[in-house]
């Protein structure tokens, strides 16, 4: 019973990780940049979500606004911050990204205060019973939402011209370009979609915790990096698997190792052990 509860918990956590990590993987696959500042778009989505919901009371509008704002900010970030750095060695973009992330966190703190914001009337707090398990409505919504969105994206990627163009660009940018694919359009699109997903995840985390804080992005940011490394850097199915695995490892680890290590330490201990055994990640093909 306890076992099932843990698995259910890790599924919820894993869905959120997956939504955040997917954007990172897209960026890494395309540009080979570790996009730490991705998590600031997640935080942005959460803030926009709380503000919109408190103003309008419509969940659909809230999700739309959060995804739109995060998505467009992601594109802006790419154009202003990353594009000029593509020719530099990778650590330059990484450090720039960390700087951007820290600055963004501080902006949230200065603009909305260190203690954060919460919903005046939190949506989807009802309880749902599935078999013997209790869920919040919001938890069910996260899992279904994540599964639906990721499913649709997977379908788009393999069945539409745009999706195939993205895949081609990831596997060989120069070749793709010579076949008439505009690299920058594909990059913009990837940032738009990946950042919108982060915004979507941000809203759900805000709903689940009934709180948005300036620092809410930091732990997911580092966890998401761990996930894309575990997933084999730039591989979409690998990332999804890794997100679920990390959710499981954390839930079970906290129960059995909680006395020695805290939750984050367990996640990173797992990451380090995996990398030492399989430097290419858990789910990489090579």
């Amino acid at each position, binding site marked *: 019973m306890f076992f099932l509860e843990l698995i259910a918990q890790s599924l919820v956590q894993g869905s959120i990780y997956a939504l955040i990590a997917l954007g990172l993987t897209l960026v890494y696959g395309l540009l080979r940049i*570790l996009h730490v500042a991705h998590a600031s778009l997640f935080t942005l989505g959460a803030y926009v979500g709380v503000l919109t919901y408190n103003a309008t009371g419509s969940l659909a509008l809230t999700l739309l606004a959060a995804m739109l704002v995060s998505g467009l900010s992601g594109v802006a970030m790419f154009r202003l911050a990353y594009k*000029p750095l593509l020719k*530099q060695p990778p650590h330059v973009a990484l450090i*720039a990204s960390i700087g951007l992330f*820290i*600055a963004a966190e501080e902006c949230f703190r200065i603009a909305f205060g260190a203690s954060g914001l919460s919903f005046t009337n939190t949506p989807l707090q009802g309880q749902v019973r599935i078999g013997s398990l209790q869920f919040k409505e919001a938890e069910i919504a996260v899992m279904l939402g994540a599964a639906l969105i990721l499913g649709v994206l997977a379908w788009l990627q393999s069945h539409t011209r745009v999706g195939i163009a993205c895949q081609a660009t990831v596997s060989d940018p120069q070749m793709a370009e010579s076949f008439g694919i505009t690299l920058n359009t594909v990059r913009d699109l990837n940032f738009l979609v990946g950042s919108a997903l982060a915004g979507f995840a941000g809203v759900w985390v805000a709903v689940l915790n009934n709180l948005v804080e300036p620092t809410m992005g930091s732990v997911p940011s580092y966890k998401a990096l761990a996930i894309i490394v575990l997933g084999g850097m730039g591989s979409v199915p690998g990332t999804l698997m890794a997100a679920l695995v990390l959710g499981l490892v954390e839930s079970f680890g906290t129960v059995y190792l909680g006395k020695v290590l*805290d939750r984050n*330490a367990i996640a990173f201990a797992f990451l380090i052990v995996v990398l030492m055994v399989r430097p290419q990640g858990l789910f990489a093909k090579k």
Partner: protein
Amino acid sequence: MDYEISLLTTIGISIMFALSLNLITGFCGQISLGHAAFLGVGAYTSAMLTKAGLPFLLTIPASMALAGILGIIVGMASLRVRADFLAITTMGVVFLFIGLVRQQEWLGGEMGLSGFPDSGLGKTGFMLLTLLLAALTAAISLYIQKAWIGRVFSGIAEDEDTMRVLGIDVPSYKLAAFAIGTALAGAAGALYASHLKFIGPDSFSFVESITVLSMVVVGGIGSVVWVAIAAAVLSALPGWFQFIGDYKLLVYGGLLFVMMRFSPHGLAGMVKALSSKKGGAQ
């Protein structure tokens, strides 16, 4: 006068800490996002040993040894994974360190350690010791840079595979860089603990790792003099401008980004570019 002494001590510790990371990331090209963990190892070692009755000066070598040994272990990761993967692995090291310390009652857990004995040198004496050690670290760095080992380091930073082809034992040199750099960070940690009289898990968080990295990057990766200058300025800034205190992280974050965006080689690169422009005009 007390304030100036304390400020100079802080600056000295920052210079040591930044130069120690510069050895690993600057000279040898191994990016580390986990350097604060070694400052922490040094600080905890020294604090625990002084608590057990050892005189402070003797705890410095002990801190260096323990930090250096753990540094070699983490350095082994750099033999398995490179560049981006190494950055993430070393980031994991910080979280592992904090998570571990947090759950250990005997290390003070969440509350941290305080009330360990003084260095016994007095404020001025302690400042002189710190500045001396900082100068020593700079001297060692400059020596390494000129020596054979430094040339190998920069070769590894430049192109690891070519160095292997040349028959150079790359793994040993990488481990040497990690050992020296982390041992020096351990010494800085011992000074840090004794200077602040309080250490806790959050004193050595990921943000600290980024702060020290920003000193190295703003100075100009690999340049001893400019890294030392950047470390001195960045650690003194919040004290000089009280208004910056609350915005310290915003300034750090912004500086990191602006520096990378417009001058990826830091202050050293800027100065070089300026002087070569002047040279070109003449």
